[in-house]
């Protein structure tokens, strides 16, 4: 049955449970009802008194009266009016009250042009302030490098504190004072601690909270080029709206995607983008350290490939088409290809893919029994956000981890070493923590659990009720896409070919095999057998610095592409702007680009990987075959091409089933006396994000995190590929017998999470 009420005589459809304002906004009628404190994701509060409508009762007893639309449940045949003088007066006078203390600073306010308060003020026709007394003024707080505060602009809608305390469940932000002296902020100056703090910028309808990073290179929003994109910083794939101007990226905003991120983003998603403008970003092709021309580098590379002694390495950090393009080229040349840098990572990817359809974050928020394995917030913060939404609805949360993470503090925490954690996951089916619920969900950080742990998770899931779901998360945007070609033993075959000197050249795409990628220790020992390494990438890295040939590629907002998220959801992103790069004028010739008008400023930045790969195929006279293969793979994985504005398309289950039979390497045995490694990450850390100065300035110190009963100042860890000496950081929240290190540390040692490790402690002086 269709439900409608009437607003100024017009039918407004509604879904039972909606309030009048919500339904009116959904119907595009918010021009008639101004509002502030209501927010689609935060609900109604009734605090601002702005959303007045007049309600006509159907009886003779009740005269028409003014009421708040956001507090009025929509019901059938309700008769409401706004086009009446008393309603207009109410709107105008309320906004005048809210504006009493508001500074007249729109021209210098970053919110100007995208300000809800500006819009509503104009819409309601308030233009003259009757109040002429002194205005209330505040001392602003320094809230760290991401969010800028200008408290005088506040209209006390309470959206910020409802977001920060209720939705994001952060503890370091609140509302202080009473009466007309209310302020919103921290107990004292200092960086906001929540991984979701940047959303304050979007939920605040005025210019109190604005984007401090955008501020460094600010333009008015009407001058921004914007478009639909997908966050490249983890496997969740939140939908974003990058904004650029004059060929440089200025900011990232949320793009509403109910199934995934809703109205919000994590701070990594919002503030990692300056990797695109980092000084260290490669923009010119480099041959033996010298900047060179596109055609020269292509010629050199083509002749290298013609020798037939090249291997190919893709990456879960790169998008689907680029990986497929590389795979197709390897295929045409009958050359070995791997999508990930180690056999462990390959097995991990296969086990992630073998999991049955994962729940969307929207579904996670509706779960009532949740088990989180590992530090979810630090890998995929928005997945942690979805868990918080479920908690608000009364879900029971159990966290299995080697340290008391923020999420663990909100639920039942089971401190476990990684090895014990794997065993526990295998037992979960009968565990009381999953009993009695309607909709149980298990969310794992893939790396902490490892391939064998993920296998155990899948087996546990089989024993749970049919509607139970599980998801595994990594901090890469496309592990699930890249890994389709991680057929058993690919990585091992590639490394074997190098060992046996069948290949002496490696063509890598978006990978860092000599730096921080899994298994880098092994690659470093193999590197002397290489007579050349070519890297296509958009960031500086250890591998980029040692590559003979470095080919810059377009950053994600600068190109089109596809990412496959943790659910197997294939999402498309579009080019939002074109990077401008200074290039040698002559380098343009023969590149296939039209020549830039007017000199050295080339309108095009680095082209996307597919351009380079296509050109190579052409020069090798393989273009037709290459294109055919590429199209075939693409069609196989996604017969239906997703629309960047849509919810994406899910990989068919039949494709996942292929991975169920993949071999699972056994985890290395650990005795209770041995020290065990776990991975330490933080919510703002990830390869691209580490290039973003402001965000990265919040990164925790590097070190070996251990329980405080360890009395050492530093220690050296010994692994098969190398040693790692770092200071010891005592962490009250860590489980005893565990050492948590970052991914670089693992790469250095040649070890994996859950592995036992030899340690030499250095006592304090």
């Amino acid at each position, binding site marked *: 049955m269709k439900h409608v009420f009437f607003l100024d005589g017009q039918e407004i459809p509604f879904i039972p449970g909606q309030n009048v304002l919500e339904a009116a906004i959904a119907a595009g009628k918010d021009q008639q009802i101004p509002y502030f404190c209501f927010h689609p994701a935060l609900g109604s509060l009734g605090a601002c008194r702005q959303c007045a409508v007049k309600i006509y009762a159907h009886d003779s007893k009740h005269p028409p009266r003014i009421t708040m639309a956001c507090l009025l449940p929509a019901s059938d045949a309700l008769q409401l009016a706004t086009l009446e003088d008393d309603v207009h007066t109410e709107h105008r006078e309320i906004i005048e009250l809210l504006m009493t203390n508001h500074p007249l600073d729109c021209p210098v306010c970053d919110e100007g042009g995208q300000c809800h308060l500006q819009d509503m003020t104009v819409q309601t026709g308030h233009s003259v302030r009757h109040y002429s007394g002194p205005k209330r003024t505040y001392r602003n707080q320094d809230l760290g490098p991401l969010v800028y505060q200008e408290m005088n602009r506040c209209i006390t809608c309470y959206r910020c504190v409802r977001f920060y305390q209720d939705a994001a469940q952060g503890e370091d*932000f609140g509302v*202080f004072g009473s009466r007309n002296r209310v302020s919103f902020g921290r107990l004292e100056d200092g960086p906001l601690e929540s991984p979701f703090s940047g959303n304050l910028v979007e939920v605040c309808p005025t210019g109190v909270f604005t984007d401090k990073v955008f501020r460094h290179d600010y333009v008015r929003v009407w001058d921004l080029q914007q478009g639909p994109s997908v966050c490249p910083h983890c496997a969740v794939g939140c939908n974003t709206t990058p904004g650029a101007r004059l060929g440089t990226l200025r900011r990232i905003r949320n793009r509403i995607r109910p199934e995934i991120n809703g109205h919000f983003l994590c701070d990594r998603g919002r503030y990692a983008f300056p990797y695109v403008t980092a000084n260290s970003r490669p923009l010119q092709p480099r041959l033996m350290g010298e900047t060179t021309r596109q055609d020269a580098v292509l010629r050199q590379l083509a002749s290298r490939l013609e020798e037939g002694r090249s291997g190919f390495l893709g990456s879960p950090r790169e998008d689907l088409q680029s990986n497929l393009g590389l795979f197709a080229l390897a295929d045409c040349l009958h050359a070995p290809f791997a999508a990930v840098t180690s056999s462990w990572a390959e097995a991990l990817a296969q086990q992630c893919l073998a999991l049955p359809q994962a729940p969307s974050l929207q579904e996670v928020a509706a779960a009532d029994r949740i088990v989180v394995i590992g530090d979810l917030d630090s890998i995929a913060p928005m997945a942690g956000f979805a868990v918080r939404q479920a908690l608000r609805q009364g879900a029971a949360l159990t966290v299995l981890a080697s340290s008391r993470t923020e999420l663990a503090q909100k639920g039942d925490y089971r401190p476990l070493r990684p090895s014990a954690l794997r065993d526990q996951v295998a037992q979960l089916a009968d565990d009381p923590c999953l009993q009695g619920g309607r909709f149980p969900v298990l969310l794992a950080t893939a790396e902490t659990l490892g391939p064998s742990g993920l296998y155990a998770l899948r087996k546990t899931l089989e024993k749970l009720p049919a509607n139970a779901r599980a998801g595994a998360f990594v901090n890469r945007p496309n592990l699930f896409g890249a890994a389709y070609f991680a057929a058993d033993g690919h990585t091992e075959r590639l490394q074997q070919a190098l060992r046996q000197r069948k290949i002496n050249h490696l063509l890598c795409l978006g990978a860092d095999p000599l730096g921080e990628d899994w298994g880098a220790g092994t690659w470093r020992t193999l590197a002397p057998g290489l007579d050349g390494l070519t890297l296509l990438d958009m960031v500086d890295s250890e591998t980029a610095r040692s590559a003979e040939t470095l080919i810059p590629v377009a950053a994600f907002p600068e190109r089109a592409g596809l990412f496959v998220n943790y659910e197997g959801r294939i999402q498309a992103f579009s080019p939002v702007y074109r990077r401008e790069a200074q290039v040698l004028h002559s380098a343009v010739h023969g590149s296939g680009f039209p020549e830039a008008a007017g000199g050295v400023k080339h309108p095009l930045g680095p082209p996307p990987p597919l351009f380079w790969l296509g050109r190579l195929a052409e020069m090798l006279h393989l273009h037709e075959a290459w294109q055919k293969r590429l199209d075939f793979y693409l069609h196989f994985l996604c017969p239906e091409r997703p629309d960047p504005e849509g919810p994406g398309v899910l990989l068919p289950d039949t494709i996942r089933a292929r991975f169920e039979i993949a071999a699972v390497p056994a985890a290395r045995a650990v005795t209770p006396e041995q020290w065990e490694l776990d991975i330490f990450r933080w919510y703002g850390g990830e390869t691209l994000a580490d290039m973003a100065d402001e965000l990265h300035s919040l990164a925790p110190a590097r070190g070996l995190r251990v329980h405080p009963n360890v009395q050492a100042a530093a220690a050296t860890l010994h692994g098969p590929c190398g040693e790692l000496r770092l200071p010891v950081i005592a962490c009250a929240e860590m489980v005893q017998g565990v050492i948590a290190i970052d991914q670089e540390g693992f790469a250095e040692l040649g070890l994996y999470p859950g592995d036992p490790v030899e340690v030499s402690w250095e006592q304090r002086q």
Partner: protein
Amino acid sequence: MSSPTSTVDLKDASLLARLQDLVAASPVPEAAISEVLQVLQKARGYIDEEALRLAASLTGLSPVKVEELCTFYSLVLREPVGTHVLRICDSIACHMAGAQDILTQARQHSGVDLGEVSRSGKLTVIPHVCIGLCDRAPALMVDDQALGPVDTQTLTRLLAQLEADIWKPS
């Protein structure tokens, strides 16, 4: 509920025991926060950072939540005060009955800004929300004692008594 600023040690065993009893007697620990703050303010004269954090850890609230409460209730003091605290209502009924004049007179007498400790150390004047004495507007509170209506003469007398330490609550 104010008292002269004192320096009762927060580690004082009997104080701690009293606070813990309050928390234990409360249906949920958080609900004990107002009483915990009252006791702490009595003991310390005002709620300093240390007391704020102690109140937070005893009740399981975050320090931000405790500060929200402290700043909401104007009876909670977050700064040191003089021997006596004069809370002058400036809400609507008292405002209409001339609270501004009372406030100005008291402030001038104290010789310092509102909320600050007078040079003699005897007095702090604070504007206050409605104290429920609207029928006796303009009203004020001297420490724990409510007074009203107050005019400039009664105020002058009161201020002199406070300075001379001869004021007695009735």
